[in-house]
């Protein structure tokens, strides 16, 4: 447990870095607020409305595909570690698993989900 406690401690100490930086910058940095300065940077043009509008669906598509592959790679970790122990059984098991995944992969490829146009 102490091994993980050390990492938690590291995360806490690392969290102090931004806090220290904010505090120091708060006292050191100059402050000349100005309504024009607080507007968004859009190459000098007055920004019309919000930036958080609809964006292209392909970003969601990438996110969903990533989720599938990431979960898959998490499943591959125990297989990889215990590969020698599982022997032939493990190879067949992971073969079926990978086959199903690759089937889906080529399906989305053929569907054109991997094209970025």
């Amino acid at each position, binding site marked *: 447990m*102490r*091994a*993980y*406690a*050390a*990492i938690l*401690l*590291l*995360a806490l*100490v*690392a*969290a102090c*870095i*931004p*806090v220290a*930086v*904010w505090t*120091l*910058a*708060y006292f*050191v*940095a*100059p*402050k000349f607020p100005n*309504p024009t*300065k*607080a*507007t*968004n*940077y*859009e*190459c000098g043009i007055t*920004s019309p409305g*919000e*930036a*958080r509008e609809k*964006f292209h669906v392909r*970003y969601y598509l*990438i*996110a969903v*595909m*990533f989720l599938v592959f*990431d979960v898959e*790679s998490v499943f*591959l*970790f125990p297989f*990889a*570690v*215990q*590969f*020698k*122990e599982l*022997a032939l059984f493990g190879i067949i098991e*992971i073969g079926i698993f*990978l086959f199903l995944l*690759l089937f889906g992969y080529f399906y989305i490829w053929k569907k054109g989900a*991997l*094209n*970025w*146009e």
Partner: protein
Amino acid sequence: MTAMTLTQSFVTALLQIVVLALFVFVAVPVIVFAERKVIGYVQLRLGYTRIAGGLHGVTGGLNRLMWWMGKLPFFSILRGFPSFIADGIKLFTKEDIVPEKADWWVFHFAPAISVVAAFTVLGIVSFSPAPLWTWPAAVPIVGGLPFAGVISDVNVGLLMLVGVASVGVYGIVLGGWASNSKYPLLGGLRSAAQIVSYEVPLTFSLLVPVVLSGTLNFTQMSQYLSGAPIQTSAGPAQMPALAILPLFIGFFIYLTCGFAETNRVPFDLPEAETELVAGFHTEYTGMKFGLFYLAEYANMIIVAAVAAAFFLGGHHFLPFGLQRFIPPSVPVVGGASFGWFLLWMALILFSYLWVRATLPRYRYDQLMHVGWKWLIPLSLANLCLAALVRYFA
């Protein structure tokens, strides 16, 4: 070694963390300096040798210092290095502007997430197999205890590393979203899509040494790559000669994905300045921008460290198991040490700069094409090759 008390292990860990943070804060200016110098020399320029500000004030002092460095035989090549002091002062003394439309809390916390994720990952990296030094007995609490080269050498090191490192993408995407401005939002989205796309082949290529050795631990992996037999929870393992093939392919896939993960050239699309100004950190000023910058360089250090530990020599002189041809009795090159690890890391970091000086940027559709249609099948095939080598060897 006798068991440590709770106070002792707490103080030991705290000291290690402080040293690690100092290491990063020293390494980042060195990498920034090396970056500008190496690219300068590649393009037949001198790189920077002075800073703006003439001979007055702090910048003047630094300029005078650099002028004197130019006069000295060895230091002349390091001319320009002291300007990191000026960089630091400038980052701190710039006005901290938060755009009116921005989400105040998220805007502030986004760079913090990136920094915390990057530093936390560094705690798992094993820099040295042996303790770096032993505290003298005179030191209170930790006197006589070793100072290990790793904060926490956990068994599931690689899994934890992949998990924690991917938290860093939140910093980028939240930074882009919180700015509520069009360029940062687009930059953040692009960056997130790029990072998640390349994370898949990155993980697959990292699984190659795991399949071969059956361990996720940094120290054991380094031992395995030196050709020595190791004892893992999944039984004994020793590197077969054929393992060099999947490791070699995996190393190049890993390095490519590592470049994309850290948003570096040739995959620095989120910062494609002709299209997106400065990408997700367009609206960031002062030290909040500095935190993103720090996180990016810390991530480069992580990529280099993982490449060193899982593909190259790790703590040894020769990579890919070639170390077995050098008997351990040979001084310096025969043993495992912190120095070799630093050398391998430096080589990977140099390759970052080399690539940046050489290659142009990819187009975004090319980036996605390479990631999804080439690297994923290639890394999977390579993983199968590694599995075959492990099964039959």
